[in-house]
């Protein structure tokens, strides 16, 4: 699961409001709970996608994985390859492999196995 995907996921339990963003908890018993995989950099693609993410959530989540993004950005930054590369790295290259997603509101936990979250209710 990429951080970009995580940016869109929310809790789907009935009557749970405000279950976003889901907290990522890594599985400590797994030797490879996070993977960094290469992805071709496409400047326009990154810019377009960036405009759709919740940037605060991205910033905080990236921090959890040791990535320090700019706290906020302006239109000037969108032409800065360094900035775009850091966004590209955070959004596309980090893959959460083993762990769980926890709702901050109702505390239900959804497992992530081999990069795949299982978000069936009542799981």
């Amino acid at each position, binding site marked *: 699961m990429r951080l970009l995907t995580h940016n869109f*996921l929310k809790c789907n339990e009935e009557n749970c409001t405000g279950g976003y963003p889901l907290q990522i908890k890594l599985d400590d018993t797994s030797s490879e709970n996070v993977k960094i995989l290469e992805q071709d950099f496409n400047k326009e693609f990154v810019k377009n996608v960036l405009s759709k993410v919740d940037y605060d959530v991205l910033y905080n989540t990236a921090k959890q994985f040791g990535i320090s993004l700019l706290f906020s950005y302006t239109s000037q930054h969108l032409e800065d390859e360094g900035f775009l590369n850091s966004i590209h790295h955070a959004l596309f290259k980090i893959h959460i492999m083993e762990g769980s997603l926890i709702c901050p509101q109702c505390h239900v936990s959804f497992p992530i196995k081999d990069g*795949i979250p299982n978000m069936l209710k009542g799981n």
Partner: protein
Amino acid sequence: MFAMDSNHQSNYKLSKTEKKFLRKQIKARHTLLRHEGIETVSYATQSLVVANGGLGNGVSRNQLLPVLEKCGLVDALLMPPNKPYSFARYKTTEESKRAYVTLNGKEVVDDLGQKIILYLNFVEKAQWKELRPQALPPGLMVVEEIISSEEEKMLLESVDWTEDTDNQNSQKSLKHRRVKHFGYEFHYENNNVDKDKPLPGGLPDICDSFLEKWLREGYIKHKPDQMTINQYEPGQGIPAHIDTHSAFEDEIVSLSLGSEIVMDFKHPDGIAVPVMLPRRSLLVITGESRYLWTHGITCRKFDTVQASESHKSGIITSDVGDLTLSKRGLRTSFTFRKVRQTPCNCSYPLVCDSQRKETPPSFPESDKEASRLEQEYVHQVYEEIAGHFSSTRHTPWPHIVEFLKALPSGSIVADIGCGNGKYLGINKELYMVGCDRSQNLVDICRERQFQAFVCDALAVPVRSGSCDACISIAVIHHFATAERRVAALQEIVRLLRPGGKALIYVWAMEQEYNKQKSKYLRGNRNSQGKKEEMNSDTSVQRSLVEQMPDMGSRDSASSVPRINDSQEGGCNSRQVSNSKLPIHVNRTSFYSQDVLVPWHLKGNPDKGKPVEPFGPVGSQDPSPVFHRYYHVFREGELEAVCRTVSDVRILQSYYDQGNWCVILQKA
């Protein structure tokens, strides 16, 4: 960085062949990364990945190792099963560099005698993570050398295959395994025996002495009264199945003659255990291995076996440093069973035909009933058929591709009910995420390196208004009430941002439209036969770099001609409460909107593998049948459902190959 030939005056300009080779090498690198998550490095290390040199594309250990050893001392050769690549680790970097230079572009010959070109790239480490249980399915044992070579010869010669000339002809042309029954006739239509009609003659006399001996020595506890002889030519197999509980008692034993083979056992949780059955061995399955695990033989000509001591029975090692291919020979099995005279009362009721609810499903009258119906006749079925289903879903439909390709770069797109991820990679300019109710289908998406998760389409865990577009292809028709179908559509609309578009496809009741029959109706036995020709022995994934040819477009909702479909339930022309759901006859028009559509499971249901043929029809074909629930839509019905959802506008509405389709836009 490499030398193709000695003509090195072209230091700054590569020849055409060199350019072509370089392209292929880069393609291999990309494929390894994209599809297998293997990262290559541009500096020399001791380890190499050898693309196109794998067990999965027909290259065996004893073919590859000598080639590699010409360049130096090979520390380890890891050949993961079913993969079209291997990893080689040399003692020194010097030696691996030599291999990289000399072996890149080298031609070798695969198991079918076809030429293959190897592409080598450096990797940081030669390693393979393999999770395999080390225990045999409970209740299973293999007794080696239970008969002598002379006895084996005698038994094989005693089988008279010439008796049944009808079967002979049909079986020869269909390349189908041969079977003979003794004691009781086994019927493949319902996978059961006719207990009231025992066959005259009982079991052959020569079997008596063996059975007595095995009883005395405690290998078996009961004297069998039914025997089935199966003969498998290399390339033939039998689909995964559980022997019908109500037909036979607990103990089932099978004698392997003529050739060893690997039999695959699978637990409902998904654990798969390959078991080697050597020649002249007796396989005994009881308890859990008989009642709960499925067993089957993949249609292929080579098995992946242990390289050292390859004839040892039991679980095939998971050590990829010790695997190779073993060519199959003609194998005959004598399977002995005891017919049950009372209903089965095993401890595995969920898979027991005696204990499961026998009443056929009826049209649901409440949301709860609908949910239960969907659980049994949609969700559970897709989990069982995922692999086979995926293999019949490979050609993207043009209108859907068109829709996706028209979306602007950077669009966030959700595929609700993505199945095997067929559409997730169509347009690289989009960020597509798929979700499906079936874990097994989502696993196939994961294997293809797509972003996907498991969820119910009625509760999609995605923030509202966050998607630029959604697609939902052949999904909503699986919901059993109008309310639930509307709710599914509402979820899709909720995900869209204002102005966002969704493409919805559902199966149409009208399979003939504008005097044109849909592909579903037109598809016939002949085209199925043709596909099988191409498919024979493609259980092995071929080369990494040269992709497999497309299997043709057999893509309508269901795949195969029927085998003696049960006609019960009849044809209701309109739905009436409390009526039983009719079982649809494949490749015919729909007479009812709410139906159960049969799916004939073919091939070993391993995920992602191409389908293997078993010969289309005939009473000898024991393929399990699953029923999937559908509500097929009438003309205008999908539009009407869309109109009940607020804030949507229908942009386009059309008919496409037996489906009603709508493109809608959120206000």
